[in-house]
């Protein structure tokens, strides 16, 4: 009896905390959307529902953009992000497997080196990397943004390694006894069981690639048809910030995150399923 009362109390507490947190998470977005539909005179108003309601801000945003630039920008961002995800999943999973499961001499050293690359912020490695890409002749193309995704990464490898380490060793031993090779073990045991971690990694890689400003700025031409959404928006934001045109600024901000949000909503069904399913399997 006391057990169920305990559970109910904990449930209520959980809900209360979660709801409060959810409100905090959502509020800035609600505010952003609200301001984006207001008339400039009311940009600082306290009401959440704009009155009068207007979509003029969104039109103002596009007024200065040359034809179709928005679609090119979005397409470029999308392409680079998707390819980054594919590259990272493939290469990080392989490396993570090796670091987590296989014993070999250089393991600790290589892993430490890998983690060490995390310590240099991107602003600093920008110039040395740029010089290397210059010698390869890749400046002005999308290659410096895509190819590095295919040669592993510290974050992804680290994340998956931690997850792989939690997979019970008996599965592996059993497979070994059945004569499975190293690659079999990777492909048939570790990968399928790691859907949640892989799902999580995909989201992070996509988001980082999508929101990256520094690298597209420097490697891609400053052409509104060849660069990414982040660079294009930075170009427009400065003017808007000048005039304190917050309503248009918010419209722009919202549009810049909208593609990501839509993608997230579509894809998260898979991810949530992935997490739930593997939970049941165990």
């Amino acid at each position: 009896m006391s057990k169920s009362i305990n559970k109910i109390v904990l449930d209520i507490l959980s809900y209360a905390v979660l709801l409060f947190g959810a409100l905090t998470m959502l509020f800035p977005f609600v505010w952003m959307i609200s301001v984006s539909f207001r008339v400039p005179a009311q940009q600082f108003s306290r009401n959440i529902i704009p009155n009068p309601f207007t979509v003029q801000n969104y039109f103002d945003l596009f007024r200065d953009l040359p034809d179709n630039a928005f679609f090119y920008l979005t397409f470029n961002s999308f392409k680079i992000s998707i390819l980054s995800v594919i590259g990272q999943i493939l290469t990080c999973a392989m490396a993570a497997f090796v670091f987590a499961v296989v014993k070999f001499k250089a393991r600790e050293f290589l892993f430490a080196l890998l983690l060490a690359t995390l310590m240099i912020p991107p602003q600093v490695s920008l110039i040395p990397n740029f010089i290397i890409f210059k010698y390869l002749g890749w400046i002005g193309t999308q290659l410096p943004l895509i190819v590095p995704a295919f040669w592993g990464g510290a974050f992804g490898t680290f994340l998956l390694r931690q997850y792989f380490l939690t997979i019970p060793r008996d599965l592996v031993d059993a497979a070994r006894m059945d004569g499975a090779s190293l690659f079999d073990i990777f492909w048939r045991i570790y990968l399928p069981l790691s859907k949640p971690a892989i799902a999580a990694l995909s989201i992070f890689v996509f988001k980082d690639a999508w929101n990256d400003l520094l690298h597209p700025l420097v490697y891609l031409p400053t052409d509104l048809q060849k660069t990414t959404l982040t660079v294009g928006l930075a170009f427009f934001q400065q003017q808007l910030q000048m005039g304190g045109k917050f309503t248009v600024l918010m419209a722009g901000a919202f549009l810049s995150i909208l593609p990501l949000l839509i993608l997230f909503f579509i894809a998260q069904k898979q991810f949530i399923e992935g997490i739930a399913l593997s939970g049941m399997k165990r």
Partner: protein
Amino acid sequence: MVYGLKPLGREKFWLWLMLIPTLIGLAFGTAGSLLATLGLSLFNWDLINPPRWAGMENYVQLFENKDYIEAFVNTLKFSALYVPGVVTLSLMVAILLNRKIRGVHFFRTVYFLPTVTSAVATALVWNMIYGKETGILNFLLESLGFAPICWLCTDNAMMSVVIVNIWGAIGEGMIIFLAGLTAIPRDYYEAASLDGANELRQFFSVTLPLITPSIFFQIIISAINAFQAYDYIYMLTRRGQGDSSVPVAVYSIYRNAFHFFRMGDASAQTIQLALLVALFMMIMFWWERHYVVYE
């Protein structure tokens, strides 16, 4: 902790094959990032002319550079506030969401939203929210009877910026912890339940020990993010063309490299930051050896 399979003979081939992409990346990253930065820190380079040898000069100057010292201390303060905050909060959320209550789907989505969006876009809203005269936060405070706070003034800026960064990162930690929580086999809970343990006890004896791998990962990643924090701070506290009211290490590094023609100084500052991270990671790996439970 020694673990792992020994590759059998021919399998050595697979082993290295699977590692090749990462090895290429390592070569590139080590040369391009670590060695290049280390090398540049020993020179003075204005980006235009060939670098001139400087030896340890840049490092010595670090101790005299008041702006950098301020930035470095701010980075430490920021990290000390941010890391515990984000790790505990996201763990708490993950645990609550793992409890099989209704509406989990909704909550998971909502908590992840801030993480999915770009810092530049959301910082613009936060700027509006934090406004002293015009912000909605102060409006709420006033309607509850409190005095308005100047959120982005020098006194409060650090805390305000920490809050925004935590807000933007809880979702990330939550996902990682959720993934880790689902990896804990159900049998352990059942066994504990049979032994008469209630939910709270189960948390401490089953969940907590077995979630340590994720905690370990999350602390390291959060710390690295904290040491390299830049976007939100830049957007929220920037004053005109120059400084920020909460300058942090990366701020100083960026300005030295791209505005003051001092690549050597920027590199030395980066190395110092990197050493800090390395130190922290060594401490964490020691902790891993003693406290993290893998199986």
